[in-house]
């Protein structure tokens, strides 16, 4: 990769949470989710973009998001994904879990420092 900033793959298992978080603002299409994620993470996360779709279908199957076809402002048909009530709940849970885990990791790192 030619870019100056080193890019990491999205952390294993956090993709679903990040997608839900992104959609918690407003319904958007897959491309929009990618853009938003890169923007928020200041381009640290290099999403393997195609892998977003299986994740979206899975989330829709689990009832956390729902989708509908709409027209974009540039007059193209795109599938927009939106958070369902169940998705909102799920996001809150995942955030809590994530928070606890990362707090714990930070604590450990602080202790072991020389």
């Amino acid at each position, binding site marked *: 990769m030619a870019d100056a900033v080193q890019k990491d793959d999205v952390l294993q298992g956090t993709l679903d949470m990040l997608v839900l978080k992104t959609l918690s603002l407003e319904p958007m*299409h*897959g*491309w929009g989710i*990618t853009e938003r994620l890169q923007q928020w993470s200041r381009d640290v996360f290099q999403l*393997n*973009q*195609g*892998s977003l*779709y*299986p*994740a979206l*279908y*899975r989330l*829709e*199957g*689990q*009832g956390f998001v729902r*989708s*509908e*076809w*709409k027209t974009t402002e540039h007059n*193209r*048909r*795109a*599938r*927009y994904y939106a958070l369902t009530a169940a998705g909102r709940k799920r996001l809150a849970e995942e955030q809590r879990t994530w928070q606890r885990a990362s707090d714990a990791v930070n604590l450990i790192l602080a202790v072991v420092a020389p």
Partner: protein
Amino acid sequence: MSAFTRVRAALSRLVGLTRRSEDERAMREEMRFHVDQLTERHVRAGLSHAEARRRARIEFGGMAGHEEAARDALRSRLVENVVRDVRYGWRSLRRHPGFAATAVLTIALGIAATVTVFTIVDSIFLRPLPVPHAERLVAISFRRPNGRAERVGSLGATLLRAHASAFDAVVAHDSREVLLVSARGSATERFGAFVSPDYFEVLGVRPVLGRFFLPSEDSVPDRDAVAVLGYDLWRTQFGADPRAVGEHMQVRGRDVIVVGVAPPGFIGISIGGAPNDLWLPTMMLGVMGRTCLGRPACRDADVLARLAPGASIALARHQVQTLTAELGALAFDHDTTAPVVVAPLRGMATDQRSDYAGLAPLLAGIALLLIVIACANVGGLLVTRGLSRAPEVALRYSLGADSGRVIRQLMTENLLIGVAGGVLGVLVSIGGVRALMGFFAHDSEGFPHFFYLSLDGRVLLFAFAASLATVALFGVLPAVTTSRVALAQHAAQSRIAGQGRGRLALMGAQVALSLTLLVGATLMARSFLSLMHRQRFDAAHVALIRLRPEQVHFDPARAQRFLRAVVARLEGMPDVTGVAFGRGVGFLWDEGPTTMPLGRTSDDTALLAYTRFVSPGFMATLRIPLLEGREFSDDDNERTPLVTIVSEGTARTLWPDESALDRTVVLGGKAFRVVGVAADFAVHPITSPAPPMVLVPFWQNAFQPEVDARLAVRVRGDPAAALAGFRRAINAIDPAVPVTELLPLSDQVKANFTAVHLGAVVLLVAAGVALSLTGLGLYGVISYIVERRTREIGVRIAIGATPFTIVVLMLRQGLAATLVGGTAGLAIAALSARLLAAYLVGIEPGDRFAFIAAALGVTAVALVACGFPARRAARIDPMTALRVD
């Protein structure tokens, strides 16, 4: 069930294919959109288009890999989707319990009717015996030009065994004999069979005790008196004692030795006859009084054969054909041209079918009508429901749901209804089959008939296919029209009006069919009532009993002493109000035991009179009207002059202008003085005018001393409940005398008219169901119209319409549909009533009363069904109505 698996596979392939291609298309489009956007961004950043596209592809990652992963995700969703659809459908149905219940019940009724009729037709006509290799068993018989079957006989069986290589076994059997069995001090009457030794092997049964017959035991007439017990006989008569084998017992007074016991549940092969409970070799038919065994023209047994492995029925037919002349020579004394028929052994024995043959198409026709009505009704319901859901569906479209998804959702809901209706229908049909087969349970002498009755897989599969097809057909329709509604919503209003008209047309068709059924039902009911009433005797509260001292070799004097004792004992019982007795095979039913020449003088005996030998009090007990003179008394006995009672018809024929009393008639060469004139009472068949009939006193023994007798006992309560007590009372006098054929007289009367009775009951039930469905349907459609037009009605009331004009306005359409449908129904009924002609006694197929009554009945139902919603319309409050959006 390979058929079932195949259907299921096809279905899932169908669903899977359509879904997958749709999802696939969406997925590709979505991914293409993504790559396009990415490309655009790179172009904006200054890359050439080709380079931008290349970069976009790289960043997106391996398309094929993503697609595969996406497909996996979609596939696992499929199952979840179905679960969600089912849950959603269930919730949606629970929000509309009235609709759901009506739809499910309607389908259940249609399915119940079909399954019931198919099961009965299957059991009576189509089902093979429940034995191994049943498909290889054939029945072989002569067919007379008049269609009657004639037995081939044991000699024919022997010939076939030797010369027809298409068969690997040929069995001779006579499966319909009533046998009095005395064993270990008590007597019982059972149906038995006389069979050749290979009978058991061919039917695949093994003895639970002892052995079956040896070939040598069926070779010489009347030599080997051996018997195989039925399991039930062994249990009840021998207490399931293993020492029964080797024991002696009496069969119709003949001493026989028990050699074995048949397995439980094995009851022979006479489907539609009585279950067998005892077997003897065919060479023991002398027990039944056969003296021709081993000689030509005896026709002592039916013949069935098993096709050899690999042999076709065509080959068997060909071989039997070439033996026709020899078989004929063995079966008839003279040259006969009767062809031999080889038929698969299925359902009831062919010679018994004729009694029921007409019923199968009648029942099937009724079931078909009910199904059509049920389908029309469900269709109407679903169409209305589809329309009332238009806003919901339109909302889902505008939220972006694709049409496939919506249709699938609606279909899931309909399938739920279909499955529930199917399950309920099958449950109802189990009861229906039992109820209908109750009509076939006994013959007119109280002997049981048996059928192998159970719902089989094919019938169930058919039922479910039918119920699913119904909902699929009418379920797709609203889904599709609703889709269109969503696309062109402004057009919806006119379409809804159109569909209201469509439903009215459906209702008209239903009215027509229900009216047809109702006319048929009224005709049959009147026919049955006329059969029951034209008997001119009162069958209620009468029990029949048959005494058979002849079977235990009583002489006439002893038999008559016994009979007098029995009558005295019965007359002394608390609830007995009269005892009559007489002689004869059917007592009241057969053409009469004896036909004798009758006339005014010994030279003039032009008439043949049915002669009945009856006791004093015979007419009083059976309530046969005595038109003139007196009944017999105890004083009419062997020491007093011969007397007779003649029937009304006889009296009118012999003495057209004067009273018959005290005249002399010559009957069978003897002179009798007429002491009474009786009303013509029924003889079978009732359809013909009453033949000449005379009654003579039982005790006068004018022709031959009587031994056996049949009793008719009038009781205060339920005759069926009194039977056991009568049997005990008679056994107490002499336990050795067989007491048989105990049954209520009314059962005997009904059993003689099973076809008419069954037809009347089925038609009445069917007409009731059809009328209720039509009423429900009319109610639904008018309610729907009222609801749709609430605003308009409000306006009309506001500008001064009276409630009456509103009611008329609302009734008009429903009644118009009823009128048109009713007229069509009368025409259909007039045409189809002729199909019932065979069952109509005492009335014409064009019976005006039936048509008028049925028309009035349908009109009344229509008025009530339309009246309720119409009244609701008249009470609409204009203020509220105008606020409806």
